[in-house]
């Protein structure tokens, strides 16, 4: 990823526009033939996809078992609610923490690996977590899942906001998404993010510049897993349950597909584009045929073959071709921005 315009800002114009557009979604989503819960799903998966892309797009680390941390967050949310206290803040913190701890544990074992070995290790650990989730029936409910997870109210001391309606939940999740996006944008363009990007481009060079590469790989994996766990916690709340399927290899594959189709390798927002396309395609194509995955799979192949930089990359390319004057202005603008 090249440094985009406004990288130095905490909140960018694009973020504001996106936030405003997303805030209007409950007003029109039913009119276009979709339904409010889809909006909730898109936002939760978007948090997950941005967290995943911190690892893949920024640090260049392929994790093909990332569903594990999403799932662990979902279980942590439910189990905390049942066994500790039904507090939204506590349950979400537990989801974040559980994802982070599981991620840190795995990162300890894989951070010295590179490339294909790294990828294989993430799959192996992902499968272990998935298997444990299925087999420990007493804790996770096995394949029956953890049911009756409640949508806890947002307790702000004086007022308490009920989230049982999909619209209320949508706005809560939108807030979480915006916070996660702002945080990740800053992280990606901080010194830490720059070092991660350097590691992606050349681990050897980064090490010879004095950076303890393993420690950075450990840190970024843990952060990504923690935030994935957080998204998993929201997901458990949204669907009132937690199942092991999100931890399976093919669900872990979905997040990779979403991020790559969307253009996570070239754009910060690419993963969000990918999530929207994936989930809308699931519902729209899924309404006509049960084999919607066949069509999405073909789209995935087409993207990888013809536009490996994904939808966001293609849009960036067209945008540049659109108007040569704009190109020159853009170059001048970016020069100004870089000082």
């Amino acid at each position: 990823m090249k440094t985009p315009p406004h990288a130095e800002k905490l909140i960018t114009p694009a973020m504001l526009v996106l936030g405003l557009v997303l805030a209007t979604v409950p007003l029109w989503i039913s009119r276009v033939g979709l339904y409010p819960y889809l909006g909730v799903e898109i936002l939760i998966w978007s948090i997950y996809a941005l967290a995943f892309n911190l690892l893949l797009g920024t640090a260049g680390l392929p994790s093909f078992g990332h569903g594990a941390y999403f799932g662990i967050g979902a279980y942590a949310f439910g189990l905390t609610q049942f066994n500790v206290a039904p507090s939204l803040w506590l349950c979400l913190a537990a989801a974040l923490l559980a994802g982070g701890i599981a991620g840190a544990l795995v990162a300890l074992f894989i951070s010295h690996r590179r490339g294909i070995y790294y990828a294989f290790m993430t799959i192996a650990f992902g499968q272990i977590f998935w298997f444990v989730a299925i087999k420990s029936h007493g804790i996770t409910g096995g394949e029956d899942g953890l049911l009756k997870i409640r949508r806890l109210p947002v307790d702000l001391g004086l007022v308490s906001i009920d989230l049982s309606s999909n619209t209320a939940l949508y706005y809560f999740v939108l807030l979480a998404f915006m916070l996660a996006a702002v945080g990740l944008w800053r992280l990606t363009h901080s010194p830490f993010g720059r070092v991660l990007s350097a590691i992606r481009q050349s681990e050897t060079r980064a090490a010879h510049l004095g950076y303890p590469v393993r420690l950075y790989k450990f840190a970024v994996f843990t952060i990504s897993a923690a935030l994935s766990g957080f998204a998993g916690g929201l997901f458990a709340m949204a669907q009132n349950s937690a199942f092991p399927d999100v931890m399976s290899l093919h669900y872990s594959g979905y997040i990779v597909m979403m991020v790559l189709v969307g253009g996570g390798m070239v754009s910060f927002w690419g993963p969000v584009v990918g999530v929207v396309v994936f989930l809308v395609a699931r519902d729209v194509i899924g309404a006509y045929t049960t084999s919607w995955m066949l069509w999405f799979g073909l789209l995935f192949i087409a993207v990888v073959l013809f536009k490996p930089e994904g939808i966001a990359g293609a849009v960036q390319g067209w945008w540049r071709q659109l108007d040569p004057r704009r190109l020159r202005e853009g170059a001048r603008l970016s020069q100004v921005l870089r000082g």
Partner: protein
Amino acid sequence: MAVLEACDIHVRFGDRVVLEEISFAVEPGEMHGIMGPNGAGKTTFFNVLTGRVKPSRGEVRIEGEDVTGLPSHRIAARGIARSFQIMTLFDEFTALENVEVALPEFRARGFDGRRAAVGDRGFESAARAVLAEVGLAEKAGIVAKDLPYGDRRALEIAVALAQRPRVLCLDEPTSGLGSDGRARLAILIARLKGRLSIVTIEHDMEFLFGLADRISVVHWGQVIARGTPAELRQNAWVQRSNLGRLQ
């Protein structure tokens, strides 16, 4: 005391002996050249000095302190910078970003995720000063992969210089450069010499003999000759090799 010292270094890969009893010391401000035929073990020796390869025997010392077997990032943090024979720039970064990330003060804040790296005046002015030194002041905003070859070579040195090293290890810095590029590089190295110690692997003997204070000739993993350029001109091996043809 020598800034960087290697004592009795042996390296084996399996049953192949790559380096045998190499000893070597770089004095402050000295430029020390390493020459020898392909496969002599020059790059492996560099890898030992910079922590990429752990020697099977022997010791590496930085200002008297034993650093043998330390990982490369620790050795780099102690002031040993290197460039690579095959260029390894951060291709997607601009020249400025490449240099910024090499600054020790950037490294000190490497785990800082709360502020933006872009637009940090401190990093930027330090990095621009280094770029100016290698003649890339005008090209700070260009993405590394779009720079012409000579500029990429210069950037490679800028990245090493940005680390403010005590010893600069250059692995064939002239490789692929035309005569203009070589001349530019020779001027730069002559200017740096004295401020810091430089170790250079080099095939271009004219270049090396013009700049180095001392030269070690490595052959079959051993140092077969060492001395000032004037002394080495008398050496039989050197005379038999390329230098004879150059003169």
